[in-house]
């Protein structure tokens, strides 16, 4: 439900402002409101609280330190994180002065240099590993040729590679090399791999410039060594490269060990320091939300009504009568500004996850969570309706809940799946389904209410019936919403739509023979009256909305359609498994199809049930546009 909020005002001596802000931060229940921009412009005794120069400088300094710590934190491996120790252990909290002290900043400098240096070294090594990998194959291919030429003075040796597709140019190249070197050259060709041919050319040094120009003009890939090896001959480079490659894993491991050692000492410590810095920066930022007179400060905010007493007591205990808290009257024009705080019992809370993708509802409107918590699992159960599938999803949801305990969003989704899978088991008992008709084949189960495959018409009528109930409930909630917000005209329009729908459904029931024919005249009269009232209140849009509502109701047929598809696939699995004539193969084939059906069984009923809520149900009453309640509280709380 959406909690009732109070507007609170705190007034006290300016000297106490910092302490009051710290207390509010610790309490974490007040949504502090920014002082309107017009204050300070008008000729008023109330001014915006300017942030003092030294505090502004402190905030800037803390932000810079936070950025540096964040940078170091991201470079440390989380796997090496130790327990919380050092600065923050014991009862003595770390002081801000510790963080901004020269000694600490020097320590951060040292740490930053060390961590960045280690990372740069590691990056250099991995780059070298990959470049050695690239060159090794080529160099190994031409090494025997280069070895032959070792010791030739005044001679230059170059290595080139050629794609096998361009093999034809090798004789031409040799001719050209011979012409430039006046036949005083040696030309060796060697296959390196299936795509590349390596060539080594030796020639007197004086032809070097011409030879290099030839290679460049023919766009042939000369083997250029990495910078580290440029002073070496090709052969020596290869020897050094192989040696380096053997050393490298050890070097990388040493760096990782050093980083892990630093993480053990610093990871948790940095987390705590960053939290402290963020909290302090938040407190400094909040100062600009306050107004002040010459001697006093004023803070205005919102708080859940039931927490007001706790706030008063906390302020009274700490500041006695030096700070005053009072509940203010909420003006008409402020109603849309009241932050929305949705709080539901533990069982319903996981379903709030579905509201997170929508803008929050307006303050004073209906919180749809309880209805979602009732109808979502019902629709899910009606569509899936199988003891076996429900059981597997139940186990899966328990595993997911445990696995994603720390991730609230995923844990909530897992909780929703737990509840929904129990509904699927319950409906499975009603429909007599266990992996399709498997229970029935063994004579263990029989449909209690109806068989979903044989009684499709009954299932369709049930689905539409649920749709009628759900949509009419949505219209009723819309009426409640409008009455709460004092909008009589809109409430009347929704009421006439509701009556129109009821009259229409009654007429359909009479025509179908479910109700006595004598009721048709009053039914038609009521329908016409509701239609006229609707046009009077909403104009031509009213009847169009009513038509849309009929479409919305028919859309609930999807419960039957998707449900039937789910059970039909299960039947196909069992039938195909039975056709094989071999028990193991049969179980294998049926198993595969059942697994597919289970995967579809998570997605399809979930998406369709959600869609029925978002599109059909919520469109009747959900009033988006509220502001979320964001209390001023410490990070990690």
């Amino acid at each position, binding site marked *: 439900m959406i909690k009732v909020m109070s507007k609170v005002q705190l007034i006290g001596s300016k000297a106490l402002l910092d302490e009051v802000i710290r207390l509010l931060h610790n309490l974490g229940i007040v949504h502090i409101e920014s002082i309107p921009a017009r204050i300070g412009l008008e000729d008023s005794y109330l001014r915006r609280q300017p942030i003092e120069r030294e505090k502004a400088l402190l905030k800037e300094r803390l932000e810079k330190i936070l950025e540096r710590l964040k940078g170091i934190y991201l470079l440390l491996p989380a796997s090496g994180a130790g327990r919380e120790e050092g600065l923050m252990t014991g009862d003595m909290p770390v002081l801000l002065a510790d963080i901004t002290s020269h000694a600490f900043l020097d320590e951060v400098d040292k740490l930053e240099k060390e961590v960045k240096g280690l990372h740069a070294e590691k990056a250099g090594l991995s780059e070298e590993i990959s470049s050695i990998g690239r060159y090794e194959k080529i160099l190994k291919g031409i090494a025997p040729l280069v070895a032959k030429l070792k010791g030739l003075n005044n001679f230059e040796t170059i290595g080139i590679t050629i794609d096998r597709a361009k093999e034809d140019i090798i004789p031409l190249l040799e001719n050209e090399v011979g012409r430039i070197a006046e036949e005083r050259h040696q030309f060796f060709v060697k296959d390196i791999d299936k795509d590349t041919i390596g060539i080594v050319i030796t020639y007197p040094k004086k032809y070097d410039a011409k030879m290099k120009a030839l290679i460049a003009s023919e766009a042939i890939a000369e083997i250029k060594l990495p910078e580290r090896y440029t002073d070496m001959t090709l052969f020596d480079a290869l020897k050094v490269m192989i040696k380096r490659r053997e050393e490298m894993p050890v070097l990388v491991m040493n760096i990782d060990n050093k980083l892990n050692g630093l993480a053990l000492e610093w990871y948790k410590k940095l987390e705590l320091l960053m939290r402290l810095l963020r909290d302090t920066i938040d407190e400094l930022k909040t100062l600009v939300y306050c107004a002040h007179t010459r001697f006093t400060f004023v803070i205005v905010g919102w708080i859940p009504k039931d927490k007001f007493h706790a706030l008063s007591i906390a302020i009274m205990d700490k500041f006695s009568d030096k700070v005053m808290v009072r509940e203010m009257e909420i003006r008409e024009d402020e109603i849309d500004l009241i932050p929305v705080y949705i709080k539901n019992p533990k069982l319903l809370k996981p379903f709030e996850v*579905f509201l*997170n*993708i929508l803008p929050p509802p307006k303050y004073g409107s209906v919180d749809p969570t309880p209805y979602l918590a009732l109808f979502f699992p019902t629709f899910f159960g009606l569509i899936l309706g199988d003891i076996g599938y429900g059981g597997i999803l139940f186990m899966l949801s328990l595993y997911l809940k445990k696995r994603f305990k720390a991730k609230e969003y995923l844990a909530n989704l897992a909780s929703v799946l737990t509840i929904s899978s129990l509904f699927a088991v319950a409906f499975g008992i009603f429909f007599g389904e266990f992996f399709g008709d498997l229970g029935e084949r063994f004579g263990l189960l029989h449909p209690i209410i109806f068989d979903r495959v044989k009684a*499709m*018409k009954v299932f*369709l009528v049930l689905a539409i019936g649920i749709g009628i109930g759900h949509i009419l409930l949505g219209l009723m909630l819309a009426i409640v919403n409008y009455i709460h917000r004092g909008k009589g005209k809109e409430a009347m329009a929704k009421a006439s739509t509701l009556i129109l729908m009821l009259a229409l459904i009654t007429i359909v029931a009479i025509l179908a023979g479910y109700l006595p024919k004598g009721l048709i005249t009053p039914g038609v009269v009521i329908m016409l009256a509701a239609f006229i009232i609707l046009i009077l209140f909403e104009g031509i849009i009213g009847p169009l909305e009513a038509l849309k509502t009929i*479409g919305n109701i*028919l*859309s609930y*047929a*999807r419960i*039957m*359609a*998707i449900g039937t598809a789910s059970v039909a696939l299960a039947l196909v699995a069992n039938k195909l498994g039975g056709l094989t004539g071999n028990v193991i193969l049969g179980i294998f084939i049926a198993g595969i199809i059942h697994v597919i059906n289970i995967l579809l069984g998570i997605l399809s009923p979930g*998406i*369709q049930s*959600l*869609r029925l809520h*978002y*599109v059909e149900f919520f469109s009747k009453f959900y009033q988006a546009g509220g502001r979320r309640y964001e209390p001023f509280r410490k990070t990690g709380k």
Partner: protein
Amino acid sequence: MEKGLIALAAALAIAIPALATAWAQSKIGSAGAGALAEKPELSGIVIILTAIPETMVILGFVIAYLILA
């Protein structure tokens, strides 16, 4: 002959909306994928939007069933 025509009518009642749904979903899906690249937090809304045209094929299925029943 009549039975065959009834079966054909039922098949058309589900096949045409199925094609229409597929076409609409392809449009919504590709636009949705584009939106997700920019704003991954819209994933929930995009999944719901993709499911919206399914009403057509579901109503087609119901009509096909009513034709055969």
